[in-house]
């Protein structure tokens, strides 16, 4: 199967890219590992439909990318593309505190995703915690699903959130609409969980709240691994792109969170530009400052990096504790000596944590991008 353009990821950025590319090219494919298009935010109910004429491959996990370009998929073998648009989104940042590994503690977006995939939460007591605009969206969605949201703990102080909203009045209706759906739900700013045990969350400041579920995420980490496998240059942890969303590798474009955490509007703009640029259409320049302002408003309080006790697990795949990592100076040394990051998630969760807590960078990406059955690696032998 060969296409002019293959778009990896069917979230808002990928769908916008598909729409733009589809205007010009009749040979566009959109690939996503989920059952439906929409990505994390529109999961299952995308507000941009997959454009007619664009081939959509759902439930298609890409585990390898080769120059030229070839995408190896778990279910469809190899796909080829003249140009590639990476719209791989982001995952949540988790930070360790005592009890964070207990069942019942989820990511904020994590619990939302589970609810969208059929988990009933009616009547459940849920606390939403961590940082960022996502918390409000998650809390509202949980409430709509019938959960009793017992509170929202946002680590950023109110004094940073208000000026941010004031600077972006266009976001205000969205914020107010969410808030209106959350009437009666306490929103504690400058507050975070410090412990979870036996269904009790202890918040900084000492308040304890009993919950069925704790939904906790401290913002987003860009999924740059696919770009790294192709050799695209990163800049401060994000995929470096020019004004046309093209990466350092010619013919590879990148859109949405991997180029800077900016949420829905930025993803749509990026996607539009990438889809247009990849098919030779004119592109509008990007507006830019929002990404920086968002990061500044929800900048993480350094006290969050001291919540783990010596025995608190940092690497969940291999159960490597905070104390076990202390003797080491860098990621690879710790990895070779303690197995931190050697498990099936390959450092996707603990890598960003050690970056926050210890200043390490977990830079090494190897194939496969996701664990796959060994026989899948044989699909379509490829000679570079």
């Amino acid at each position: 199967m060969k296409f002019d353009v293959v778009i990896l990821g069917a979230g808002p950025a990928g769908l916008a890219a598909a729409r733009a590319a589809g205007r010009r090219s009749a040979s566009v494919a959109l690939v996503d590992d989920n059952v439906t298009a929409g990505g994390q935010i529109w999961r299952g109910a995308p507000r941009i439909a997959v454009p007619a004429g664009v081939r959509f491959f759902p439930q298609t996990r890409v585990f390898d990318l080769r120059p030229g370009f070839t995408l190896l998929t778990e279910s469809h073998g190899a796909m080829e593309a003249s140009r590639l648009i990476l719209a791989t989104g982001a995952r949540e940042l988790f930070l360790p505190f005592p009890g964070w590994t207990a069942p019942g503690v989820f990511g904020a977006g994590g619990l939302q995703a589970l609810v969208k995939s059929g988990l009933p939460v009616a009547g459940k007591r849920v606390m939403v915690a961590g940082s960022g605009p996502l918390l409000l969206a998650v809390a509202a969605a949980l409430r709509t699903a019938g959960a009793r949201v017992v509170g929202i703990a946002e680590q950023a102080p109110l004094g940073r959130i208000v000026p941010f909203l004031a600077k972006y009045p266009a976001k205000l209706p969205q914020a107010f609409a969410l808030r209106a759906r959350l009437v009666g739900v306490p929103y504690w700013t400058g507050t975070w969980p410090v412990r979870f045990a036996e269904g009790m969350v202890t918040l900084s400041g000492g308040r304890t709240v009993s919950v069925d579920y704790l939904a906790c995420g401290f913002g987003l980490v860009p999924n740059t691994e696919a770009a790294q496998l192709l050799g695209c240059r990163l800049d401060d942890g994000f995929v470096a792109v020019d004004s046309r969303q093209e990466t350092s590798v010619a013919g590879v474009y990148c859109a949405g969170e991997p180029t800077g955490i900016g949420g829905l509007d930025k993803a749509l703009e990026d996607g539009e530009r990438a889809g247009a640029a990849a098919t030779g259409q004119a592109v509008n320049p990007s507006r830019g400052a929002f990404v920086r302002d968002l990061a500044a408003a929800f900048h993480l309080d350094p006290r969050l990096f001291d919540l783990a006790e010596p025995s608190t697990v940092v690497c969940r795949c291999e159960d490597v504790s905070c104390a076990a990592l202390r003797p080491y100076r860098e990621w690879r040394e710790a990895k070779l000596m303690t197995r931190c990051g050697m498990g099936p998630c390959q450092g996707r969760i603990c890598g960003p944590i050690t970056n926050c807590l210890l200043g390490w960078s977990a830079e090494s990406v190897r194939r496969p991008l996701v664990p796959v059955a060994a026989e899948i690696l044989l699909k379509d032998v490829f000679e570079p």
Partner: protein
Amino acid sequence: MVKLRCDGVEMVVAEGTSVAAALLGAGVSRFRSSVTGEPRGPLCGMGVCMECRVTIDGVGHRLACQTPCRAGMEVMTT
């Protein structure tokens, strides 16, 4: 509706429900034991953390959050 079994217990869920959602909905919170024996369950809900691994129809290390329930499925926590 789809009927499946987890650790021998039958459960019935709506079409399209993920295995993770089905198990959690039925009150199963321990999906697997960590390498030191701690109980673990889903975290990220999106196929990244690998904490939701269960055995499905005899195949180990399957991601419950990425697998839709199918009729007759046999799920084992580990």
